[in-house]
Structures are given as structure tokens and as C-alpha cells.
């Protein structure tokens, strides 16, 4: 069930209705049942995968918690131990915990790797050796990257004693499979999501209507804007003849499409949660208003970024070999290198993993590493910027900030073309053509109308994007749009909601003549 299918809308309506009809203590079991129905509808086989992940996380986290408990009890009972004895005991426990964690990680990351990357490895081997290994027909469970990451995060949190283990198997199963976020995130942390996931919620007009409004807004962005842009993006990136200024058009169209698609999907997800009184982490914070690429990555797909930071970047960069390497480099290669080596290596690993996570293909690796390179370069240029700013005092001035924002959007859009053209040399050639063959006339002579969008489409897109921009600007300056509407007379609030619904139904790009478009992030 795609979020944009009739089946899902019906499923959601029934689930919401049932959610508020059953007694509070039955709410979370109902959600678990609904989530399993949702996943089962995609394919009964998927349930097997998610059950293995859930069961392994359940068993291992209980074991980890038991070992931590053993350590606490032992140390409390033996207050007379020397520091060395305590250390030795802790180390022993840690070793056992680590073995359990590693087993759990190997199993779950292994499943993810085998299902998603087997064919990538086979294709790459074939390309390298000219061999004819046959790609295998592999089941890739829907949303496996998302739920695996979420579950692994939970187990690591238990391992780190940051999180008590969940003793109720079914509650953990709900955390792993919660249907709104199953297919495209956000990647929730157990500690945060569990605060509201299992508690009973009474119907409240404000939270429910806020949630619904956000769901509608998400649908609006997805079906009115993203899916209407889709034919143009497909046309522009599917044909290498669209060079020069067309590449710029493709960059911008794809930037808007991806934004509307992904944030729309997340709005639907978080909105569903809100309507049920469940709080999920935000995944976006007006990313296209970022002034540099690092800031962009702090505001785009936030839950993925923090996941990589907490569970990959930090563990690598503060592990003892890394610390020793850093120390050694300082001593032998000088301060400048020594200071950088940790950050460079760890963030390289993170961006490599981010690239591979996005897709089992070299274009995603190239995409990830380009991000890494740009971040490192801008990091190195920092002192230069500092000098520049001290000289010209432009910082904080509106035109300069606008320049920074546009620059960041363009840069990110250019890097993203790796993901669009799906071919590394082609991407580089196409981006190059912007500088050699740029013909700005295509923006005014009607050439854009040959991309599968007619004048009426462009009008709807223009108005829709203007509304989206206005909402973003309001959010940036004044905060929650919904709150502002809520403080107006109720008719304004509900009138907006009604208008949003009607516009989405009438102006949405769905149904006959449109292929049902998957959310872009469902692939990952």
C-alpha cells in the first residue's frame, strides 16, 4: 500500500477510527495489528524478515540488560574491590556484551546487505572481470533500511546502558514495525518514540486536527507538486540530449520534486502519528534555507544524519586505534595533519555508508563521496571565509544570506544529479555542459512545455510552489503555521483544511494518465 493509494487512505481512516474507539490500553496492540496488516499487504514474505529482526533485537537486548544488571549487582555487593579488580570485572562483562551486540549487528546488517547489495556486488564483479554472473532474484523487504537502522539503534542504546530493554516482545515489535514510518522513516530512537507510542491517548480535537492538517499538507506536496513535476524530471534526466541550460532546469525541477516528495511523505507520517497522539522526530528543518552544505545536512533527513553520527561517526572517530592514529600523526606528520586525520577518515566512512545506504550503485557512492569532499573543502576554507567576513562585514546581511542559500541549493542540486542520471561519467559530462552549452532561451521560448507539462500544469506548479514557499517563510519567521491558524476563528482553521483537501483531490497528479509514483525514499 503506497501512501498515495486508495487502499492506504481507506486503511488509515479505519485505523484512526478504530484507534479512538477501542479502550486506551488496546490502542498500541491495535497499532501493532494494523502495522502487520500493512506490511503483510505488501508481501507476506516480508513479515518473516521483520520478525527475525524483531526477535533478534528482543533477545539480544534482554541479554545485554541482564549483563548490565549483573555488573551493577556484583559491584554493589563487592564494594571492597580495588579499582583494578573493578576494571577487570567491567571489562569481562563488556566483552560478553560486545559479543552479543556484534552477533545481533552481524545478523541484521547481514540481512540488509544480502538483500540489498548482492546484485550490486555481482554487477560490479561482472563489470570488473567481464564475467557473466547472473544477478539473483532477491526479495528486498519494503523499508528494510529504515527498520533495520531503527532496530539496530535500539540495541546499541541498550548496549550503551542508555536505554532499558523492552521486556514486552509485542511492544518492541510495534516499535520496529510502526506502519507510518515503516517505509521511509523518520528513523526514530526508542527512548523518544516509546514515550508516546505505548501510552493511551484520548481523542483531543487539537492534536487530531493538527495531525490531519499535516497529513493533508503532506498529500498536497506529494500528489499536487512532486508527482506533477515527475514527468519533466523523467524527461530531462532520461535523455542525454538535454544538455546545458536543461541541466539547470533538471537540477531545479528535481530539487523541488525531491523536496516535495520526501517532506510530503514525512509530513504524512508524522501527521498520522500526531493524529494519534504519538510524537515522532522531525526529519526536516527547512533544508533549502541552509547557508552551507554542512548546515544543509543538519536540516535534511535529520534522523538519518544523527543516526550516522551517533552510531558510526562517533564510534569510529573516538575508538582507541583512531585516537592513537591521531596522536601518532601529530607526532610524526605535524599538528595540521594530526588534527584532521580523525575527522577526515571517520566522515569518509560515514559518507561512504550514506551513499551505499541510498542505493546499491556506484552513482550513489559517487554522490556520497562528493558530499564528503565538498564538506571537507568548505571546512578547510573556513579560515578564509573568516578573513573575508572580517574584511567585508557581510555576515547576517539579507542579500548575502540569500546568496548563500541559493548557492547551497544549487550546489546540493548539482551533487544530486549523480542520483538522477544514475551514471557517474554521464553526470559529470552533463554538469560540464552547463558551462559550455548554456542557452538561457529555453526558459522563455516555451521549450519547457515539451517536457510533458503543459501551461496549466506549470500554472498549478507555480501557484503550489508559491504556497509551499510562503508556508516555509512563515515557519522560518514566525513558527508553526497550524498554530497561527488555530488561533484564528475555528472556521479559518477548518476552512483551510477543507480547501487543502479539495485542491489535493482536484489538482493532484494521480489516477488515469499518471503512473502511481512511489515515494522516492521508499527505495532506500
Amino acid at each position, binding site marked *: 500500500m503506497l501512501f498515495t493509494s*486508495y487502499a492506504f487512505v481507506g486503511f488509515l481512516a479505519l485505523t484512526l477510527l478504530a484507534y479512538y474507539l477501542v479502550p486506551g490500553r488496546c490502542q498500541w496492540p491495535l497499532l501493532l495489528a494494523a502495522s502487520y496488516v500493512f506490511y503483510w499487504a505488501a508481501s507476506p514474505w516480508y513479515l518473516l524478515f521483520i520478525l527475525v529482526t524483531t526477535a533478534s533485537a528482543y533477545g539480544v537486548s534482554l541479554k545485554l540488560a541482564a549483563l548490565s544488571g549483573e555488573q551493577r549487582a556484583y559491584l554493589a555487593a563487592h564494594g571492597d574491590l580495588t579499582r583494578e579488580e573493578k576494571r577487570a570485572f567491567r571489562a569481562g562483562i563488556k566483552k560478553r556484551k560486545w559479543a552479543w551486540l556484534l552477533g545481533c549487528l552481524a545478523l541484521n546488517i547481514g540481512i540488509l546487505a544480502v538483500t540489498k547489495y548482492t546484485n550490486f556486488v555481482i554487477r560490479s564483479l561482472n563489470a570488473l572481470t567481464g564475467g557473466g554472473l547472473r544477478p539473483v532474484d532477491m526479495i528486498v523487504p519494503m523499508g528494510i533500511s529504515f527498520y533495520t537502522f531503527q532496530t539496530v539503534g535500539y540495541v546499541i542504546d541498550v548496549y550503551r546502558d542508555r536505554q532499558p530493554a523492552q521486556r514486552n516482545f509485542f511492544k518492541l515489535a510495534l516499535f520496529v514495525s510502526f506502519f507510518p514510518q515503516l517505509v521511509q522513516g523518520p528513523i526514530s530512537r526508542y527512548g523518544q518514540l516509546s514515550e508516546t507510542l505505548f501510552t493511551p491517548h484520548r481523542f483531543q*480535537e487539537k492534536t487530531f*486536527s493538527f495531525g490531519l492538517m499535516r497529513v493533508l499538507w503532506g498529500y498536497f506536496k506529494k500528489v499536487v507538486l512532486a508527482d506533477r513535476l515527475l514527468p519533466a524530471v523523467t524527461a530531462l534526466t532520461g535523455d542525454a540530449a538535454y544538455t546545458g541550460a536543461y541541466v539547470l532546469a533538471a537540477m531545479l525541477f528535481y530539487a523541488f520534486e525531491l523536496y516535495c516528495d520526501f517532506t510530503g511523505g514525512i509530513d504524512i507520517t508524522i501527521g498520522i502519528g500526531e493524529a494519534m497522539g504519538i510524537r515522532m522526530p522531525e526529519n526536516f528543518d527547512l533544508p533549502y534555507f541552509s547557508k552551507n552544505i554542512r548546515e544543509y545536512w543538519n536540516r535534511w533527513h535529520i534522523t538519518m544524519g544523527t543516526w550516522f553520527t551517533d552510531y558510526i561517526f562517533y564510534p569510529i572517530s573516538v575508538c582507541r586505534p583512531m585516537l592513537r592514529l591521531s596522536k601518532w600523526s601529530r607526532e610524526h606528520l605535524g599538528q595540521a595533519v594530526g588534527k584532521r586525520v580523525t575527522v577526515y577518515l571517520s566522515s569518509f566512512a560515514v559518507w561512504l555508508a550514506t551513499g551505499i545506504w541510498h542505493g546499491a550503485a556506484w552513482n550513489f557512492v559517487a554522490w556520497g563521496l562528493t558530499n564528503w569532499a565538498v564538506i571537507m573543502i568548505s571546512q578547510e576554507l573556513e579560515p578564509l571565509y573568516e578573513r573575508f567576513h572580517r574584511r567585508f562585514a557581510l555576515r547576517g546581511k539579507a542579500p548575502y544570506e540569500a546568496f548563500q542559500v541559493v548557492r547551497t541549493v544549487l550546489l546540493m542540486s548539482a551533487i544530486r544529479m549523480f542520483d538522477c542520471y544514475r551514471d557517474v561519467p554521464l553526470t559529470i559530462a552533463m554538469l560540464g555542459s552547463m558551462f559550455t552549452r548554456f542557452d538561457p532561451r529555453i526558459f522563455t521560448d516555451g521549450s519547457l512545455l515539451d517536457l510533458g507539462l*503543459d501551461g*496549466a*500544469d506549470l500554472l498549478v506548479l507555480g501557484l503550489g510552489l508559491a504556497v509551499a514557499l510562503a508556508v516555509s517563510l512563515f515557519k522560518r519567521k514566525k513558527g508553526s503555521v497550524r498554530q497561527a491558524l488555530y488561533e484564528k*476563528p*475555528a*472556521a479559518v*482553521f*477548518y*476552512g483551510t*483544511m*477543507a*480547501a487543502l*483537501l*479539495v485542491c489535493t*483531490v*482536484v*489538482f*493532484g*497528479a494521480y*489516477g*488515469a*494518465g499518471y503512473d502511481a509514483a512511489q515515494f522516492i525514499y521508499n527505495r532506500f
Partner: protein
Amino acid sequence: MKGRRWPAALLAAVCALGALYLAQRLLVPKYQTGVVEGSMVAEYYRETVDHDLVFIGDCEVYENFSPITLWETYGISSYIRGSAQQLTWQSYYLLEDTLRHETPRAVVYNVQALQFSQPQSEAYNRMTIDGMRWGPAKVRCILASMTEGEHFIEYLFPLLRYHDRWGELTGDDVEHLFSKDPVTHAGYYMRVDVKAQTGFPEPRMLADYTLGEKPMDYLGRMADLCREKGVELILIKAPIEYPHWYDEWDRQAAAFAAERGLTYLNLIPLREEIGLDMSTDTYDAGLHLNTGGAEKLAAWFGGWLLERTDLPDRRGEAAYDAAWREKTDYYNAMKERQYAELAQYGELVSFGANAVER
């Protein structure tokens, strides 16, 4: 606070539903000019008198028989329940639907659609089904007809199917927001222009000439239903050679009729007897008859029918006279208009292909 907010929520919901309803009325195609075939199925429900004879089928009935001629010549009150590429199961459900409203003495089914075992196109599905009144027949018709990618809910709420037409609205959509003009004459689609038949390409070679299971099954159900209701079912093949009606198909249709004790009449070999001249009696080079041809065929067919079936002459019954006078007047007026256009432009301009807004 809460007490004062729910009326607004309710009001907004009502407004949203009202707006969606209006949008649906506006955006669903009206089929008033050019492509009028989409109006045919719904037009039946405006009928004020019963029919003793009902034709069911595709363009081979609604373009080839003139019910006005049947009325004027024999006093037969008839109606054609046909639509573009109406598939056998759709014909069956339209028969079911018709028999809920009235019980004619005879039903004539044209066998041409037996060659289709699969739904052919979403556009034809919609033209045939959207006009049906809601009931079990419509529900089952939809379920039997949907092509890949169609959804039942899009029949329930046609706005979901046609929402995207806002870019191509015409005057018709506004003018006929709440009412439609009749476009047929008791289900007959009028064309007076002439384009002679010159020849057809070789018929397609088929690997398998067996008529499909699904259409034959529905044909059987048609026969069952008619027997149950005491209606005589007559099978015909209209006198049209293209698309080709293979001898193998003809034998299967005849065998079915014999098995069920029904009459089957292939009109292709009878063209001379009927008096059809395919150089003057067709408007599209032999694919369909024009009005001249349809009148000749109706006159002949009415006579043939009365020889074996007892159909009453309704002339002189006030209700019938009034209803058919109105139809006849409209028929003659449209005919005059079409001839006038032919005289003036050499072709039809507000009917048929030239009137289709693309």
C-alpha cells in the same frame, strides 16, 4: 472551546463535500458533442414508454438500426441499449438493468463482441458503465470490466477519475452541469453523410478461432435470463464486413443458438435482399451504416421479425403516440440539420469527428 469548534469543523466538512460534488459535476465528461457515445447508456432512463423490442450490443446495433423507422413502419416501440465497444458481459448487465425497468417481448443481441474475451480499453469501459444506474448490475459490471490500473472507487466517485480535466473544460461542461440534451434517437446514433465502401484489408490470420469462454458464458447467461423472464432472445450479426466476422465464429454462434433453441441471423449475406448498397448506405466506408442504410435495415428487419415474433402495433395508444411523436420530430429535425450542413460544407461539422474537441 471545544464546544464552539465542532460546528465549524462540520461546516467545513459540508463545504468540502459540496465543493467536491460540484467539481465532480463539472469535470466528468458530458459527451454532448462529438463523442456522444458516452451519453447513450444513461439516456435510456429518460424513456417514458415501455419497449416491446430492445436491441443490445455495440456500434453494430446503435449505428445500424433506426427505431424511428420501426415505429413509423410497424408501430414497434423499440430501444437500442448500446455503447461504444460494448463487451458481452457489459451487454449482459445492461440487459439485467433493462429488465429491472421493463419486460420487452424480444431482445436482439448482436454477436460481434463475442470475439473479445478481455476488457479492451478504459475509455470504453467508462463510456459504457458510467451512465448505468447504481445497482447490483452496475457493481458486477464494473468488477467484470476493470482493466489493469482501474479502481472501483473511481467508478463510485468519478471525480477521482476525471479530476484532471480542469485543463480541458469546454462550454459543454458548464452548460450541461446539471442537465443533458438527448443525443440519440431511442439509442440510435444518426449520421446522414456518405462515404462509400471501397474494400477492406485481408482479415487477420488467427491462431485460434474459438470464441472466448467469458463472452460465451455471458451469452449463456443472457439466454438464461431471457428465458426466465419470458423474453425471446434473437441473435444477429449486423451486415458489416469489417472487422471481419470469420466463418468459424459464425458456426459457433449458430451452434450456440441451435443448442438453446434460439434464432441466429447473419445479415451479411442478406444485404442484397435488404437492399443495402454499400456505396451509398455507409458513412465511413463500410464500418457502419448511415441513416439511409439504417432505415432500410430497420424496415427489412421489422418485417422479418414480425413474421416470427408477435410484436404489438402501438400506434394509436396515446402515451406511445405522444412519446414517439416527440422522438420523430427530433429525429427529423436532426436529419434536416445534418443535410443542411452537408449541403453547406460538404461534410458534417457539428456531428462526428469534426465536432470532437481534442
